[in-house]
Every structure is written in structure tokens, then in C-alpha cells.
């Protein structure tokens, strides 16, 4: 199973770029890498997804090295509203039944 490992917490000042790395040594060939954001008392919300190299959307970038054993979520110029828990999720492959979320990284943005 492609379990994931992330730092438990990170702090950052407003306006800085934040990089959160996720390790997934047992990722399978068919697995995609997806990141979610969760605010208190809410369900997780999709941020970005990728398979290899780099993906960028309006809120974040995702960097995936060639061996795909890790991935890095990059949040440019964070604001206080980016304070949340960020989860890295790796698909289980063909037919993807049970999708495992890791413990998540609690990001605190400091004024």
C-alpha cells in the first residue's frame, strides 16, 4: 500500500513561499498524487493533482521528481487564510478502492 509520510506541522510568515514534502516510497506505476486542504470543522478540499514532473494551478504548484517517491506542494506567498491541515494522498492504482490519507501537515501562517 502506498502510504505517505509528511511533517506533522510547519509555521510560516505571511507572504512567504511554503513547501510541504510528502514521502511515498511504495507508489505504484498507476498511482496519482493528490493534495487536499482541510479547515477546522470542514471536509477536505481538493488543491492539486499530478502524476510526474510539475503541475501548477491558480493556488499551488506540485513538484514530483522522476522516481515519484516524493512530492512537494508549493504554496506561493501564503496568507493567514492558508492556515489549515494539508494532506497528501496517493491513489491505490487500478480500481482505486480504499484511498488512504496520511496524518497531514498542520500549517500555521503567522502575521
Amino acid at each position, binding site marked *: 500500500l502506498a502510504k505517505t509520510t509528511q511533517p506533522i506541522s510547519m509555521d510560516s510568515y505571511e507572504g512567504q513561499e511554503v513547501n510541504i514534502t510528502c514521502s511515498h516510497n511504495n507508489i505504484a506505476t498507476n498511482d496519482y498524487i493528490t493534495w487536499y486542504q482541510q479547515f477546522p470543522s*470542514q*471536509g477536505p478540499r*481538493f488543491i492539486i493533482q499530478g502524476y510526474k514532473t510539475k503541475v501548477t494551478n491558480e493556488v499551488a504548484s506540485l513538484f514530483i521528481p522522476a522516481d515519484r517517491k516524493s512530492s512537494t506542494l508549493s504554496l506561493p506567498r501564503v496568507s493567514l487564510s492558508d492556515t489549515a491541515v494539508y494532506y497528501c494522498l496517493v491513489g*491505490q492504482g487500478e480500481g*482505486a*478502492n480504499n484511498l488512504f*490519507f*496520511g496524518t497531514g501537515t498542520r500549517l500555521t501562517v503567522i502575521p
Partner: protein
Amino acid sequence: GAGVSQSPSNKVTEKGKDVELRCDPISGHTALYWYRQSLGQGLEFLIYFQGNSAPDKSGLPSDRFSAERTGGSVSTLTIQRTQQEDSAVYLCASSLRIRDRGWSGELFFGEGSRLTVL
């Protein structure tokens, strides 16, 4: 609304009672997941439904937990003889598609049902 709807949003029950939690997925979504989140913890997978296939129940913590999905749409998670350790937020998510080359697709989560067992 077009999102995943869960009810009740809050449920307080006494130890030993049965509870039912309901999830209305986004219309047309074939995949439905249940997760459990204890206070300050990550998401724990419980069960997965995909279309008319047999559900993956590998995450259910005990035989007190069961879930069904009627007509490929609404799902109900039932917890029998609740225990205090069952207190958590139960989250439901649905997804539109699973590509041929492995999982790909966004999970849409509901707001969750907060269960408190006294």
C-alpha cells in the same frame, strides 16, 4: 445544493445505542467513500462503494459498523451499540470517475457528521 450532503450534522447519543448517518453524494457520482476523523487526527478510511460492485469494507473497525448504498446513490453508515471511542466526525466523499490508468479524480467531501457518544 450541488455538493455532498450529510445528516445529521451533529448527533449526541448514549453508549449502547445505535446510530445512522446519511450521505447524499453528488448526483451521478459513482464512487462513494466513508472516512472517520477523531479530534485532531487524520482521516481513517472506513468503506468504499463503486457503482454496483461489492463494497470494500476493509476499513471498518468492527462488526458494529456497517454501511449500505441504495440505488447507487444515498449511503447510510450504521453504528450499532455505540461506544465512547466511536466519537468522531464521520466524513463522506464522492467522486465522478476513476480513469483506466489507476485512480484519478477529485474527491468531493461533505461537511461531516459529528458523533458524540456519552
